[in-house]
């Protein structure tokens, strides 16, 4: 598994935390990606959460976005918003030749026994390079667009 990109977003000020949280979730749901919230902690003035989003590009490549957010020193304001600090880390990883748990029998698309099979070698040599570059570019764009969306929500509140 290779890391494609890691991005960090930090903001301190007034924020509509509920809107931020829901918009973040909907960003990935609108793209039809498998969304899982693996951790959520509410300590009153601190919120912590971890999301894991899977994008199965095809039967060979899978991109996983790991989003960690941490909100600290959060104090509620009069209009239902919060004043505090938030840090969001977005990480995109690419997994090649992944095991699809939804498939019966052999879970990898290529049946490798000792080393790579002939088909697998052919795939990697002839076509995969272009696909790999495209997948990486799309993953970086998605991560950047996600961060930009968070920024635009926070900047709206800053105004």
């Amino acid at each position, binding site marked *: 598994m290779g890391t494609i990109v890691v991005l960090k977003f930090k903001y301190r000020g007034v924020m509509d935390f509920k809107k931020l949280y829901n918009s973040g979730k909907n960003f990935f749901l*609108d793209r039809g990606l498998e969304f899982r919230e693996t951790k959520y902690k509410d300590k009153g003035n601190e919120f912590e959460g971890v999301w894991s989003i899977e994008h199965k590009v095809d*039967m060979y490549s899978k991109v996983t976005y790991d989003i960690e957010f941490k909100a600290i020193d959060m104090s509620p304001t009069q209009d239902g918003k919060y004043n505090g600090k938030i840090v969001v880390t977005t990480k995109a990883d690419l997994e090649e030749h992944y095991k699809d748990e939804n498939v019966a029998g052999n879970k990898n698309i290529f049946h490798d026994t000792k080393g790579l099979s002939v*088909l697998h070698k052919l795939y990697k040599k002839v076509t995969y390079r272009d696909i790999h570059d495209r997948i990486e570019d799309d993953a970086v764009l998605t991560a950047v667009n996600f961060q930009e969306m968070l920024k635009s929500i926070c900047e709206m509140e800053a105004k």
Partner: protein
Amino acid sequence: MAELRFLIEDKKVVYNGLFRIDELYGIIKKNLMNKGYFIVEKVSQEDVLENGKQVVIKLEPFKKLSDYAKAKMRITVFLRGVKDKTITVDGHKQKYQQGEVQITFFAIHETDYRNKWENSGLQFLFRTLMDKFIRHSQTHHSEEEIKRECNALADEIKSYLNMTRFKISHDMHPRKEE
């Protein structure tokens, strides 16, 4: 497993003012049907709130380009704070709606939507070779067409909303003829 390629992501048309919901919806429907899309309405939700109506409509129109590729769009129409208003246009009273309009567009190129080419490693490899060496220009052409169609729809909606704003403001403040 079908492969989805997002060609346009999160393209937004935002407007605040007077419009007609039936005309807006009619424009979207007519535009898509003229281009051969089959319209699927996934969500249609209307809530009456204190500050006006809130309407969410999610459309997923699609068009089969071949037995291998499909053009798809995801359109979300979000109307907020919508209130009915009666306006005089060309001397006649007409019912309009006033509020915030936000329309989001996604344009998608879907391939192997029948999942015929991923049952084995050989089929998968054959498909990628076909995509790379034989279908490349055809795929590129289809993708450009889908982007064009989505942008044309967004532009048509924009010009309708701007024309509505102009038509109503023109009627409310007619020019004095010298």
